[in-house]
């Protein structure tokens, strides 16, 4: 049952191709699927088929397989009937016996052995050739042209996708397989015709040829043809005497007297003809039919695994799904563009109070010295001071206040809290915020650093606070 389920049919193949064009899942889903069917992972074909079965419902209508298989079935049925009846009528035609002249077995042998033999050789050549060489050989198959015409005149437009879906190799094996079936049915028709004619008439068989062939040579030839079955059914091979007896010359006014006298013996040829048909036209053809069916299946499996998308699926089945991404989407922050930032382009040399946020007393002394700025009240705030200490410093500040900040350290809410207290101090009528660069850079801050401070101050909307851009 399991094995049957793992068989790839043409319908599966086409539906799977269509599914891959419409849906392939994602790595997470596919890996999860593979983990659920871990036992199938060893067989790519099995796991792909299982994936297909699980997702088959996603294939959107119209199903290409439905149209294609319906058409194929119709064409196959029609052509199968035609093949069978063509064989049947050919057989009846070849074996029609009026009693006036015997039936020449050479015509029948031509259809029962030589034509099948040649056709099988061409089939074998088609099997082993590819592309342009195959195109050459396939031209010899009459059924190929019949089917091509049928397709062209009936549903050509509906099958435009066939060349895209089915590779030339697959089409080749499909064609060869179908042609063997038609030929087999033709041969069966021929065989039934032979049996029917033998049963319904008393046929006198003969052989006749323009070539100067002796009965012995002809006997050798038919014996050679009978090699495959001679050993287990020797009575089917005509004796030399029968061959001699059944040689027929058309130019004789009347039938050979001896021939007429022994007409009952001439009918013995039918066993030979039946065996020739059975072996060459039916047995060998059946083998070829089965072989081409096998190779068609193998090709189907091969292409099933190499369809556009299967490689990715197998990769996703076999590769652990690794996710490093965030589980939640981030709400992006709207950046406030600076518009009316109160900016001072120079720094004064004298301030009522100087405060340094996250700067020590010594660091502030160095800045003041470097910038030639003076003040009687200097407070170090932030850093390792407590918030209560900063509150005291903010309340003691007066008049015009210079507030040093490290330009590279972006303003935190801790700073904003402190600035709020400073601004609320009624004795402070202006706060000039001075972002400083590092001492190594002579306190020169970068434009980017200044911009961050400007944006922050702009956002705070404090009337008293200015940013020094000097």
């Amino acid at each position, binding site marked *: 049952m399991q094995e049957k389920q793992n068989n790839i049919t043409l319908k599966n193949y086409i539906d799977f191709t269509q599914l891959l064009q419409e849906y392939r899942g994602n790595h997470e889903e596919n890996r999860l699927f593979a983990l659920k069917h871990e036992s199938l992972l060893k067989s790519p074909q099995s796991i792909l088929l299982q994936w297909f079965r699980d997702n088959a419902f996603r294939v959107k209508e119209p199903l290409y397989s439905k149209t294609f298989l319906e058409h194929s079935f119709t064409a196959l049925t029609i052509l199968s009937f035609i093949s069978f009846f063509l064989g049947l009528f050919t057989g009846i035609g070849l074996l029609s016996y009026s009693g006036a002249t015997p039936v020449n077995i050479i015509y029948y042998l031509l259809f029962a052995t030589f034509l099948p033999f040649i056709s099988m050789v061409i089939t074998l050549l088609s099997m082993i050739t590819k592309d342009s060489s195959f195109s050459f050989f396939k031209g010899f198959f009459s059924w190929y042209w019949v089917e091509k015409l049928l397709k062209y005149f009936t549903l050509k437009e509906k099958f435009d996708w066939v060349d895209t879906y089915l590779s030339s190799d697959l089409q080749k094996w499909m064609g060869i397989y179908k042609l063997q079936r038609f030929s087999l049915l033709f041969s069966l028709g021929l065989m039934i015709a032979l049996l029917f004619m033998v049963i319904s008439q008393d046929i006198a068989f003969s052989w006749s040829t323009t070539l100067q062939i002796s009965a012995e040579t002809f006997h050798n030839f038919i014996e050679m043809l009978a090699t495959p079955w001679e050993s287990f059914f020797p009575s089917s091979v005509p004796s030399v005497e029968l061959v001699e007896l059944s040689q027929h010359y058309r130019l004789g006014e009347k039938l050979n007297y001896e021939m007429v006298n022994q007409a009952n013996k001439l009918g013995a040829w039918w066993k030979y003809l039946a065996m020739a048909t059975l072996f060459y036209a039916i047995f060998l053809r059946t083998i070829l039919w089965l072989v081409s069916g096998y190779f068609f299946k193998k090709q189907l499996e091969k292409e099933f695994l190499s369809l556009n998308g299967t490689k990715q699926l197998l990769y996703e089945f076999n590769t652990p*799904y690794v996710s490093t991404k965030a589980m939640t989407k981030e709400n992006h922050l709207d950046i406030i563009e600076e518009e009316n930032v109160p900016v001072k382009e120079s720094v004064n040399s004298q301030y009522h109070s100087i405060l340094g946020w996250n700067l020590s007393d010594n660091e502030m002394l160095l800045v003041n010295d470097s910038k030639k700025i003076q003040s009687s009240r200097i407070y170090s705030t932030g850093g390792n001071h407590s918030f209560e200490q900063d509150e005291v410093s903010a309340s003691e500040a007066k008049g015009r206040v210079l507030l040093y900040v490290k330009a590279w*350290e972006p303003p935190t*809410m801790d700073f904003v809290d402190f600035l709020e207290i400073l601004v609320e101090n009624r004795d402070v009528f202006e706060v000039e915020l001075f972002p400083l660069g590092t001492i190594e850079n002579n306190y020169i801050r970068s434009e980017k650093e200044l911009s961050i401070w400007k944006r922050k101050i702009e956002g705070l909307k404090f009337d008293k606070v200015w940013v020094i851009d000097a």
Partner: protein
Amino acid sequence: MHSDKNEKESSYPKFAVVGHPNKGKSSIVSSLALDDSVQIGDTPGTTQVKRSFPLIVDGKVIYELFDTPGFQRARRVLSWLKKQEPVSADKRSDVVRAFIFEHRDNEKFRDEVELLEPIVNGAGIIYVVDASKPYGVEYEVEMEILRWCGQPSMAILNLISEEDYREQWNNALGHYFRMVRTFNPIESTFREHLELLEGMSHLKEEWRRPIKFAITILEDLYQKKVEKSIDIIVDNIQKTLSFVYRLNVKGEKVTPEEEERAKIAYREQIIKFEIEQTKAIEAIWNHRSIEKIENILSLENVGLFSEESASIFGLSEKGLIITGASAGAITGVGVDLMFAGHTLFMASLIGGVVGGVGAMFGFNNLYEVKILGQSVGKRELTVGPMKNLNFPYVLLGRALYHNALIAKRSHALRGTLNLDKDTFFLEQLIGSDVRKKLEEVHLQLRKGKSLSEESIIEYKKVIRASFESLLD
């Protein structure tokens, strides 16, 4: 029983990346999580809530990273904690937990609650500082709070700009953290990424195994990404070189307009193939939000056919002739080779059709233009496959260059992708002996023949070797 299960489920390592605002926490997380969607900004407070970045393998979390907002009111937090003293060391993390509990709905401490919460829930601390700026005492408050949490911790020195104050920082951080590492998320290589993870595994004994497993997984994933991107490049080469554009012709003869239309359609399809390739490669390496420089050399416009790209991404005239002759390609297409060699260095390849320059050298020197089926009344104009000998190398050179840039690009980078190719020369990357192998495949494709599996494998090997040398 139930709580045991929960404990087991959440026993994987967790790391909270914390620090002062704007010190590159999100960049580090973005780089470690290979996620270019993380918002990184120069405005403090860009990260407003903590975000979890788990490494999940087949649905199982191996470790989890938390990107957190920066400390905003660290002094007040520490002041609150200290007010609870005296507290023995083993109870200090409970005090931090109590702080979170008490201030969970307090907007004032939103950031601190966000950043401390994963830590008190067992996450290791990755404290990030900008070591390109001087150390400041204000950091000690933050470090003290983290010490109160009692979780294993390490510090990362991120060099955001060019100055280097690592010595100062090392002296200070050594008092608070067991391990101090330098990691630049913008410039770090994949190897450095893994080394940092390795370092993180040493924070706690029981984290070693899962992190080691994660490293194996990430290494494997990296190799698979390399393999996949090579597959995409080779598929595109095959598809492009064998591409034939077909146009049904209505009249008795092919009009110049029809021919022109077919040539343009051919060219557009080839550009489309390359755009698809670049997108697929960017998706493989998780770079979905890249902005690229939109100029003539951008891979997403007609740059494929520019004069410059032909000379830089392809082979030199000499190199091309050696390659062509050695692979036997010169026979039969000798004239093409001569013309193609000139067109390579004097004008654009196919872009000339649009620009008018190509007319000087003849369009047919590039690819075949055929009119089929005149005898049976059905006319079809075909353009392609590409016959120009240098074209596959141009395509290959551009693909390898783009792939290498993308593979090496940090997920923390938010700038425009610079496709400046001044230093890229395919000839130096692929030796003449190797080119012979490539040319054999190109020859098959130009003839419209399908390639054997062995030759594709061999071709991919060559491309992979060249690509890996670009990654080093």
